[in-house]
């Protein structure tokens, strides 16, 4: 039975894949970044159709609205130019890579569908409202949640350490 939900789901799935392919095909970093924004937006619609409305909103606010803005910000700041393509080898990559990738994804899908014991999720089936999500995040999965936050914090601190030059004078001399 084909419902409107399924049709919209398939359309946005196609948008998602097309955005991802466009991300790889574009030569300019800012076009790639914007393709990724499209992927994020299409993913948010998919979450919404599955019933995970809170995750969909967070996907837009956090990924499309904040993280990707930072990506674009960095690209603007560095004024990154066009990607330099290496000549040759790309045909081999296309001939071997695309069928290989397709075979790999079919394999993964087959394993997931046959051995995980779950069927595909029906539209609107996920418990997605904030009141259903909050007990999961802050009671059942509190420890993984907090550990993930600490992991992100460690990564940020690492980035700060890497970015800050303890001896700024040396940097000046080099420049």
């Amino acid at each position, binding site marked *: 039975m084909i419902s409107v939900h399924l049709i919209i789901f398939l359309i946005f799935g196609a948008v998602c894949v097309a955005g991802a392919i466009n991300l790889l095909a574009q030569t300019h970093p*800012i076009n790639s970044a*914007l393709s990724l924004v499209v992927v994020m937006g299409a993913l948010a619609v998919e979450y919404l159709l599955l019933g995970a409305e809170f995750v969909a909103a967070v996907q*837009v606010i956090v990924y499309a609205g904040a993280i990707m803005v930072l990506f674009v*910000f960095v690209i603007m*700041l560095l004024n990154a130019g066009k990607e330099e393509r290496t000549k040759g080898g790309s045909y081999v990559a296309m001939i071997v890579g695309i069928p290989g990738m397709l075979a790999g994804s079919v394999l993964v899908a087959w394993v997931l569908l046959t051995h995980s014991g779950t069927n595909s999720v029906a539209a609107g089936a996920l418990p997605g409202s904030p009141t259903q999500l909050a007990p999961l995040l802050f009671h059942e999965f509190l420890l993984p949640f907090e550990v993930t936050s600490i992991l992100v914090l460690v990564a940020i601190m690492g980035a700060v350490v890497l970015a800050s030059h303890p001896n700024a004078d040396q940097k000046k001399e080099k420049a």
Partner: protein
Amino acid sequence: MNIVPFIIFAVIKIALALFVLLTAVAYTVWLERKVVGRIQNRWGPTRVGPFGLLQPAADGVKFIFKEDLTPPHVYKPLYIAAPIIAVVFALTSIALIPVGNDVTVLGYTIPLQIADVNIGLLIVLGITSLGVYGIALSGWSSNSKYSLLGGLRASAQMISYEIALGLSLVGVLILAGSLSLREIVEAQSGHFFGFIPNWNIFHGLQIVGFFVYIMAAYAETNRIPFDLPEAETELVAGYHTEYSAMKFAMFFMAEYANMITVACLASLLFLGGWSGPVVGPPIVRALLPVLWFSLRIFIFLFIYIWVRGTLPRFRYDQLMSFGWKFLLPLAIANLVITALVVVLVN
């Protein structure tokens, strides 16, 4: 409700909301020129129509007939897309804003809101957070140093203040227990001590949250005293330096539409939405809440303009340290205290 009347009413509501919003945008510009004029001891627009009231129409005609310049060396696809992105996201968020109680027309009960979504507030925040792309991309694609600096400033500023803005709203959400804008307003109905309205700013003691929200919202809409992205003394006009005619007007419309959205959210979340005395025959009863809501928005817009006429611009480092070192801790403290009070009272 059947699908056909639903669609008819939805189309009518969308058309009406767009018309009212665009008119409000045009007359906010007029109001700004008038009020700032009077603050600076001059008259503002007076020539076109009585009190210059037709000035927005004249400006619109001018924008349409001006030459639409595209400078050489711009990155054309994004140069054209940027103002569209800015104005589309600015105008879309009005769809989630409720403006009054349900009204009954021809036997159908119609909510005065285009889309009543149970996570309405999050969607408004999501849409407004995407609006920054218009500004960032216009700055980058113009291929001009002033535009680029304006775009960089805007994106850094908007990301920084979005955090304080979001956290300042969580206190309200804890009190209301809902993300639906309509339910948040309904949770604020009634009075306490007999006469003080149950608004979140009084009853929920969200005055700190309100303060953080207003400060962050001024920064999010790039208005004085946080209008660094278009600081004309240093950046010509910032991100829209290279734009002319209708493309420039679209950035202008986006800015004022965002101001109106901010005013709507502030009224809904902190000031009781459309609550107010309702008397008279049914038609007046249905429309008075809309009037009370519009009055709050007018006051907000007036304060926006008043601030513009009064305050100087911050320095960029002041802007950043204000956002990260003052507003953000204040918003977190407000959140913790509100959560503690709610837990202890219940």
